[in-house]
């Protein structure tokens, strides 16, 4: 730590308060409070008890204290277990220790705006020789993205179409589709999962089967009759009216 502190050329003491922006070069350790942005060509350490109300832009950022603002680091961001961050974190590498509190968007990897500057230099060099080889993975990577993007409108269309079909089918009196009519709640849940495209594909088929509870019963009722002759008709008569009444009542209401 002595070496570390020796490198931390600038220190804002625990009682220190900066009202304004901090910029320049060198490392900066914040044990006190900074109300303003920090833009530094160096490392920024927000020590335990330190508080920064503003954006931090630096090469490396280490947070053990509290930051209310965005973190943008050229190399890496580390948030220790005692660290609290309310803001977006953008850096090629981000480490968050257990116990840390982070509220905001995390953007890591080469697609981060900071890293993009260096990326073109690295990628062409690596892909220059194996251009054909490098191309497929890119296309392959793009494909799922396109598929995912395509899946979104499809899902929306299917919903809209599904709504129309339901009405038609209800009129037709098909039970399996009337089961879909019980689906609206699933749609509501499905919209909540809009961010997960694949999950949405999976959920619709899975959920219809659950609400189709009435259907399995109907099927079960159909299967039961062979075993016992007298009971099936009763079950059918009882089961259907209740579901139909309930469903129609909700739909009409």
């Amino acid at each position, binding site marked *: 730590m002595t070496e570390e502190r020796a490198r931390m050329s*600038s220190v804002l003491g625990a009682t220190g308060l900066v009202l304004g922006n901090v*910029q*320049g070069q060198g490392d*900066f350790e914040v044990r006190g409070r900074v109300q*303003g942005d920090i833009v530094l060509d160096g490392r920024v350490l927000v020590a335990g008890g330190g508080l920064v109300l503003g954006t931090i832009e630096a090469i490396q950022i280490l947070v053990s204290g509290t930051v209310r603002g965005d973190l943008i680091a050229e190399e890496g961001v580390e948030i220790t277990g005692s660290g609290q961050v309310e803001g977006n974190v953008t850096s090629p590498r981000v480490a968050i220790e257990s116990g840390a509190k982070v509220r905001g968007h995390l953007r890591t990897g080469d697609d981060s705006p900071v890293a993009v500057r260096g990326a073109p230099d690295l990628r062409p060099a690596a892909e220059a020789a194996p251009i054909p080889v490098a191309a497929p993975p890119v296309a392959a990577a793009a494909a799922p993205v396109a598929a995912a993007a395509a899946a979104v409108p499809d899902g929306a269309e299917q919903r809209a179409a599904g709504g129309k079909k339901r009405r038609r089918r209800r009129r037709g009196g098909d039970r399996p589709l009337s089961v879909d009519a019980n689906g609206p709640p699933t749609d509501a849940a499905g919209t909540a999962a809009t961010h997960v495209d694949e999950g949405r594909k999976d959920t619709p088929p899975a959920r219809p089967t659950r609400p189709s509870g009435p259907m399995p019963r109907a099927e079960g009722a159909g299967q039961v009759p062979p075993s016992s002759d007298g009971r099936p008709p009763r079950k059918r008569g009882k089961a259907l009216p209740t579901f139909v009444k309930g469903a129609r009542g909700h739909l009409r209401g």
Partner: protein
Amino acid sequence: MADTIISSGLIIDGNLKADGSVRIDGQVLGRVQSSAAVELGPTSSVSADVQGQRVSVAGTVLGNVQASERVDLLSGARLTGDVRAPRLTIADGASFRGKVDMEAGHD
């Protein structure tokens, strides 16, 4: 070692306030206020008032300097502003342009 250190290369575009000692080798474009010692190094530059218990200036200050104990203008210091402190020393090679008020009882 001072509680707060603003090293050369660092620029604070605003005010700096601390209860502990402050050492500045960088640049402060605002007031510096401390209830303890304030050390302004040779490479420092403060473009507003400086206030502390003891203030030693070796860099450039464009503003008033006030201390409850003493002010020391070291060699190489360039102060444009008034000094208000019970004790004041001005070293050979220091540049000072302003008024001095050493009357006890203020502050």
